[in-house]
């Protein structure tokens, strides 16, 4: 053995290697996988890992964006450019009927609105494509009920998740066997934390939407959350638009995604801010505030 070799692996390399292994397993064992792509930071990392997994080949599956119609313009532009840059096939799917009927959280409440525009659109999109595996960028550290999620998470032929009846998952042997109509959701980023994601984005210079960085934005304050004002915003009585220097920690639909006051303009400062942060990244997502178990209920129905 030559003496100048080093066999140490830091945490980002270990996580990267684990994720690449997972992504390759799926492509080897499934007939028709697809990668959910939400344009957020986690999706960007996941797509990047997929590129690494099949280098020098191209992605052997499409990226699928479930569009609610309420994403920020910046996100749409970024999405289209990114798919083009890496030569990926992009599928955009949405619940057209609900959008036509004017589904909006202010009318339906966030649970119902998410159910129609995200969960239903996702289930329909997966069914239409006949996908037997769908990659999602969810992380276990995001939310309590995600902590028990498997890396290969079985869904019945209605796309439903049963948290009490999951396949045991040992070592890194994944059981991807499904019958027709059933599918597996795969979470290659299960073991990553928010800080890992950003450290990796910095290390790999992965492009992300500029909304993660601070600038002056028009916002309105709702239940202590700063909601950006754009064409989708329904201003309510007595609400006032203010200009605040802020950024987004996680990206969702414009009516439900809150910004946090911040002066972070580059990734070093962002990681610094995160490490000092005293609040979790979902604090400004209006969707989780429904009830104590709202995420778990959504997941059972088929939400990612």
């Amino acid at each position: 053995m030559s003496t100048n070799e080093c066999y140490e692996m830091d945490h980002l390399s270990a996580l990267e290697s684990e994720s690449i292994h997972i992504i390759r397993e799926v492509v080897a064992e499934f007939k028709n996988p697809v990668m959910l792509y939400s344009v957020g930071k986690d999706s960007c990392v996941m797509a990047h890992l997929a590129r690494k997994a099949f280098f020098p080949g191209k992605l052997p599956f499409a990226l699928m964006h479930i569009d609610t119609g309420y994403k920020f313009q910046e996100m749409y532009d970024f999405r289209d450019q990114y798919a083009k840059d890496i030569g990926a096939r992009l599928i955009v799917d949405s619940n057209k009927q609900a959008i036509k009927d004017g589904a909006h959280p202010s009318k339906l409440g966030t649970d119902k609105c998410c159910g129609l525009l995200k969960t239903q659109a996702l289930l329909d999109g997966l069914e239409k494509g006949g996908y037997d595996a769908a990659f999602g960028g969810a992380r276990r550290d995001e939310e309590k009920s995600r902590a028990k999620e498997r890396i290969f998470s079985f869904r019945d032929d209605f796309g439903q998740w049963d948290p009490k009846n999951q396949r045991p998952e040992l070592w890194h042997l994944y059981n991807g066997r499904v019958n027709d109509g059933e599918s597996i959701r795969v979470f290659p980023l299960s073991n990553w934390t928010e800080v890992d994601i950003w450290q990796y984005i910095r290390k790999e210079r992965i492009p992300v939407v500029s909304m993660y960085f601070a600038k002056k934005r028009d916002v309105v304050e709702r239940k202590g959350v700063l909601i950006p004002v754009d064409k989708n915003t329904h201003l309510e009585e007595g609400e006032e638009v203010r200009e605040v220097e802020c950024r987004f920690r996680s990206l969702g639909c414009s009516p439900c995604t809150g910004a946090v006051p911040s002066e972070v303009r580059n990734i070093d400062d962002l990681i610094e801010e995160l490490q000092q942060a005293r609040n979790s990244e979902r604090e400004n997502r209006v969707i989780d505030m429904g009830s104590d178990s709202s995420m778990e209920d959504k997941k059972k129905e088929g939400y990612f």
Partner: protein
Amino acid sequence: MSSYKELELLRFSTAVSVDDGKSTLIGRLLYDTKTIFEDQIKSVQETCDRKGLQELDLALFTDGLAAEREQGITIDVAYRYFSTPKRKFIIADTPGHEQYTRNMVTGASTSNLAIILIDARKGVLIQSKRHAFISSLLGIPHVVVAINKMDLVDYDEDIYNSIRNDFVDFSSKMNIPDLSFIPVSALKGDNVVDRGENMPWYDGYTLLSYLENINIGADRNLIDFRFPVQSVIRPNQDYRGYAGVVESGVVRKGEEIVVLPSGIKSTIKAIDTFDGELDYAFAPQSVTLLLEDEVDISRGDTIVRPNNIPAVGRDFEAMICWMSEDPFDVNKKYIFKHTTQSFKGKVNELYYRIDMNTLHRQKTSALMLNEMGRVSVRTQKPLFYDSYDRNRATGHFIMIDEMNNNTVAAGMIMTKPTDISELPPEDTGV
């Protein structure tokens, strides 16, 4: 400017009996390392206020699903994350309830370290022995016994010592390469993250400093090169790469290799990655190997070195843990998934099961959920395997029921000839 720090990754699992204080301990680790965010603290605080509790109940931070919230018990494996300036930690948080052996086995399968929790008032119970047994069977290199609730025994050194001696006694026959003991109070915090002032007689590591400092570099097998091919990357006629994880060992450019099962030899032309070629790769890196010769290789083949090849065979012995509600059926064919190979196979013989209450072996004709047994297996085609105690990465498999696709068992391959003195004692039935 924040500096990037390279952290080592440590995966550990917990092994406890209900009420020993696991949730409190993990809550304490997360809370005292400032991993818990203010909005989460606020939500737990509100729950505590509703229940009329005086103090913040740390156990609530790791409480996961609604069903178990109702039952008040953890029912499955949950994964938790925290880091310190030294390491990133992944906790496989598993319950210690008897019927949940399968969860402990699951959590242990990926861990470098297990924390076995003992209630200082109760001492070493059969459950603790069971935990030690599972940890040794699953090949966890480091076991730390946290003797908890020291506050309830007046932080008494003698009680700590006597529990420690008991544990050392019964575990000496097990394969636990590195065993340590720490007296703690999860509730009050002593020796978890902060040392506290109640046990001046103890001068060892606190739990966190132990987790941060033990040497895990030597836990991997870096000797036996094993590369099960995951898939072939073939973007064009000029490129044919074999993608996979170096499961164990090290491989270098220019080295001679042999492909199993064909036995064809070739030389490593390149070790490729997205970030450029490497001169060498080691476990557990994901890489793509290119060979000098055009060889027909597909998923399930394994690349090794000619002078260090694994066992190749259709017959082997194993210890399996049964994980399904459906009882194990000796006459049924199952799918055996091992590295990147999946073959039909069958258990030829069930020698005995381990009685999890006595840890004695017992004659049996069936295995039920959460039971472990020693078996011999025959697969349709040969597997390329090592014995689990030599190579954790290539010594394990899972069994899948072909009918419903469930994972029904986890197995550890044992190739050593059965030495009667190393077996658990036989159950005489008295």
